[in-house]
């Protein structure tokens, strides 16, 4: 598919959907508002679209108000117990007599409600248009002077011609011939019923609407025919469009029995301006009927607009539905773009709109409370089918709200890309650069702020108590701040505690030698660095241990291989020495050589085995079979086993071993080797004629055995005799492998005992101690 057309489809899909949606909302809200206040809205629409201003509710209200005023005027000053305030009407008159400027006049031609003028001095032509009910109730309240005054003021309003009679006498009129049968032929002839039978009524040219009150009922004629005054029947007063004296809902009062009112209304009302009417330089102006006419026309236009735009909206909606696949794509791609915008830029206007709507709503409710229906009527002028501008503004607002919603729908956590988040991020990074201790100190800022705010709290509470609401709000905000800070602090501390817990746990794990687990804490945590380092240490330890194990294993392997390689030729040597030995007829000296060879090869064999064993013991690979055994018995057995050697040596052995059993946990055969080596050593290196002392002491916790002998050579004081291949005599000429003590030590340690060598002058002391088993 062509990208360009796809793109345009996306745009069309989105825009038409939005536009359709907006227009539908605007139109629906306008419709709802418009429906308010009309008893029969379909009828109202019909009337409006019929474009006849005389066929509207407003018109009916108006002329009936006028009729009421005329009735009032007809009986002015005749009420014996007048209750009305004489000034009431006059005030309204004066209000109506506000001077109009030329500028306002010109505005009036275009716009029906000039700014700065109140509803009253605009509509208040003195006919009490909105006070139809009031006038009916307040009749007989008018004085003669007031009636005169009113007459003076309205007489120039040629949109309404009137003739007010009482008891056959014409009281007020602005058209003398109105209602008189002069025999003239006019365009409109009206026939009305009077006391004296039918009466022909002559209408002046340009007038088509006639009202005639005959003292009992009001007759209404339009275009020569009787107007339908029973739109809703005559039942209920309040459901009634016409409240005409003389019908069921408004019975004619006796006071008006003698009144005869003729009233004609112009077919096409005009603006009536009378300058300097009251002699004070004020301009008087009345255009209500003209306005009604214009408004009716205008309203018809606006209704047509409404219908047209509704159709348009459906077209848009249909388009939007058709391209809804592209719309979704468009939504996603727009969300991608809007996702990069700081969230505040989106959120603040939305909040502002929300706030404005809220304020407007509250204001509207307030206005409605004070002004009632009239406010709604006023509003009606603004909404229905009213102007592209309004719709466009609404479209923009809705579009913006949609952008916001769209952003929230397709972007995950859109608030992350925001100035606030950025600032917090910067703050965090700068915090992270600080060492842990400083960060901890910084946390105290929370505490400080909390403390500061907490001290402010009672002050504001006190002040609020004295001063009132504003401070109370501040107090509340302060309280919320404190709670929020407290929460932040607690949350921070909680996270820190969790991290610390993990760190400590990891330290313990490393300490216990569990080197495999790699504990993680979040990177933003203050302890992340410490954790990382600890992990490094653990890795290092792991590597070191691995290396050590590897090298030990290699060493053992090496020694095993070497000893194997040595053993193979040694086997041959020993074998052939044996064969040589069995050879007969050899001279004596050759036999001596052979025996030397034999003894040396045997020694070599022993050494190879010793080397192998000691290296194994050193690398911890010596197998041990631990069991409970009697330490005393073991030493006895060893001495018994070596009796021949002891007997052959020039030294004697003194034992000091307890009679009762001393139980230890060790490997018997290894421990035998230990004491065998120790006693052999002692036998070999002791001064002739001296004694070897073998002691065993069973202490509280340890069984301590010691072998003491007096060296025949001077003992070097600076040499660790347990080191491998170290000997007391540096010449290395004697028969040992040099591994005796080393083997003894490593075997003892492999069995879990401790091994100690001391030299005091010529006294050589070896101590072997084991934990005794109770």
């Amino acid at each position, binding site marked *: 598919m062509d990208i360009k057309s796809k793109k345009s489809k996306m745009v069309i899909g989105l825009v038409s959907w939005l536009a359709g949606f907006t227009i539908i909302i605007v139109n629906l809200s306008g419709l709802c508002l418009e429906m308010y206040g009309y008893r029969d809205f379909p009828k109202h629409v019909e009337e409006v679209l019929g474009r006849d201003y005389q066929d509207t509710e407003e018109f009916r209200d108006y002329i009936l108000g006028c009729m009421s005023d005329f009735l009032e005027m007809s009986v002015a000053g005749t009420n014996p117990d007048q209750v009305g305030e004489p000034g009431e009407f006059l005030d309204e008159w004066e209000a109506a007599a506000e001077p109009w400027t030329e500028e306002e006049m010109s505005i009036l031609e275009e716009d029906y409600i000039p700014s700065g003028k109140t509803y009253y001095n605009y509509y208040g032509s003195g006919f009490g248009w909105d006070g139809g009910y009031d006038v009916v109730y307040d009749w007989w309240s008018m004085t003669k002077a007031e009636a005169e005054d009113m007459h003076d003021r309205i007489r120039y309003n040629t949109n309404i011609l009137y003739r007010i009679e009482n008891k056959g006498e014409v009281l007020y009129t602005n058209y003398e011939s109105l209602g008189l049968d002069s025999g003239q032929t006019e365009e409109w002839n009206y026939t009305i019923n009077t006391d004296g039978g039918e009466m022909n009524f002559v209408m002046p040219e340009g007038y088509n609407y006639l009202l005639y009150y005959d003292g009992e009922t009001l007759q209404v004629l339009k275009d020569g025919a009787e107007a339908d005054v029973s739109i809703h029947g005559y039942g209920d007063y309040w459901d009634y469009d016409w409240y005409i004296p003389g019908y069921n809902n408004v019975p004619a009062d006796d006071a008006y029995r003698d009144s005869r009112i003729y009233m004609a209304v112009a077919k096409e009302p005009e603006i009536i301006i009378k300058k300097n009417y009251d002699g004070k330089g004020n301009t008087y102006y009345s255009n209500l009927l003209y306005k009604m006419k214009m408004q009716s026309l205008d309203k018809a236009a606006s209704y047509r607009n409404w219908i047209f735009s509704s159709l348009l909206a459906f077209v848009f909606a249909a388009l939007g539905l058709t391209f809804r696949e592209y719309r979704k794509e468009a939504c996603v791609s727009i969300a991608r773009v809007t996702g990069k915008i700081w969230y505040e830029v989106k959120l603040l206007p939305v909040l502002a709109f929300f706030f404005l709507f809220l304020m407007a709503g509250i204001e509207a409710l307030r206005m409605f409370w004070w002004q009632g229906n009239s406010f709604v009527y006023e509003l009606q002028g603004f909404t229905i089918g009213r102007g592209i501008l309004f719709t466009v503004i609404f479209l923009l607002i809705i579009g913006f709200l949609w952008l916001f919603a769209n952003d929230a729908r397709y972007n995950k956590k859109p608030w992350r890309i925001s100035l606030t988040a950025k600032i917090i991020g910067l703050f965090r990074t700068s915090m992270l650069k600080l060492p842990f201790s400083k960060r901890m100190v910084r946390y105290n800022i929370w505490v400080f702020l909390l403390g500061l705010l907490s001290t402010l709290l009672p002050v504001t509470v006190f002040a609020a108590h004295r001063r009132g609401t504003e401070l109370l709000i501040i107090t509340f905000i302060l309280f919320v701040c404190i709670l929020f800070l407290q929460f932040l602090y607690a949350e921070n501390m909680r996270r820190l505690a969790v991290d610390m817990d993990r760190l400590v746990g990891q330290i313990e794990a490393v300490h216990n030698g569990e080197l495999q687990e790699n504990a993680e804490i979040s990177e933003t945590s203050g302890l992340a660095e410490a954790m990382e380092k600890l992990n490094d240490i653990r890795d290092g330890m792991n590597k070191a241990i691995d290396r050590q194990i590897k090298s030990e294993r290699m060493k053992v392997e090496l020694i095993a291989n070497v000893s194997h390689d040595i053993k193979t030729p040694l086997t041959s040597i020993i074998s052939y020495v044996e*064969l040589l030995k069995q050879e007969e007829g050899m001279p004596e000296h050759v036999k001596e050589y052979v025996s030397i060879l034999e003894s040396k090869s045997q020694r070599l064999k022993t050494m190879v085995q010793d080397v192998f064993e000691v290296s194994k013991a050193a690398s911890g690979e010596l197998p041990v079979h631990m069991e409970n055994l009697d330490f005393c018995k073991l030493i006895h057995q060893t001495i018994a086993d070596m009796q021949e050697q002891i007997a052959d040596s020039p030294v004697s052995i003194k034992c000091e071993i307890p009679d009762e059993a001393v139980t230890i946990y060790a490997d018997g055969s290894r421990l035998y080797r230990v004491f065998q080596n120790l006693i052999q050593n002692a036998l070999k290196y002791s001064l002739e004629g001296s004694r070897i002392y073998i002691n065993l002491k069973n202490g509280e916790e340890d069984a301590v055995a010691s072998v003491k002998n007096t060296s025949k050579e001077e003992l070097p004081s600076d040499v660790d005799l347990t080191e491998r291949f170290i000997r007391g005599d540096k010449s290395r000429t004697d028969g040992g492998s040099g591994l005796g003590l080393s083997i003894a030590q490593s075997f003892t340690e492999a069995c879990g005992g401790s091994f100690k060598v001391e030299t005091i002058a010529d006294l050589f002391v070896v101590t072997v101690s084991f934990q005794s088993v109770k």
Partner: protein
Amino acid sequence: MKERILVVDDDREIVKAIALLLEKEEYEVLKAYDGMQALEIIAESQVQLIIIDVMMPKLDGLSAVMKIREKRNIPIILLSAKSEDTDKVLGLSIGADDYVAKPYNPAELAARVKSQLRRYTCLGDINASLSTANVVNGRLRYNKEERVLYTDEEPVKLTATETKIVDLLMCNLGRVFPAEEIYRRVWNEEAYAVENTVMVHIRRIREKIEWNPKEPEYLKVVWGIGYKIEKK
């Protein structure tokens, strides 16, 4: 008839030394220098015993033993420089009858060969081993009624005290006797500091029944506890 023994080792000198040793003992010796050769010889000729090295080229000793064991039931003595317990266990468990570590003691090797051959050719005394009067333990047989100990079916000359000790240990194979108990039951006296006395006798018995008294196989010291004859 001379028994025929196959000696296998990659070290020709060792093969020769063993051959000399065994020929002196009146055996016929065949020589091979790797596992494959050994298998060939066994296939060709009648062999009564094999002494075979573990580490050899071409086919190592352990594999050779397994191959041989598939067909033949002749005694096999493994000879190896590997002296670890684990090596011995492995060798014995795959079918070898004995295990001698290098460097070997020639006399001991000769004695082991003799022992293995005797058991292979005479097949032991089944009747004797079935009799309740006899305690048979590997190379050892003790007749309780005659109070005579046989090693490889040869009577061993023991003194009266030694016989008593052997009687005690052979009738309780594997049980560890402390020196005091041995003394009390053999000498019928209260025991006090008897370790040396008992040890002397033990050593003498060892010299009579063990191939290598320094590394006894049967009469063992359990260090720190006592003495026993190991159950085979």
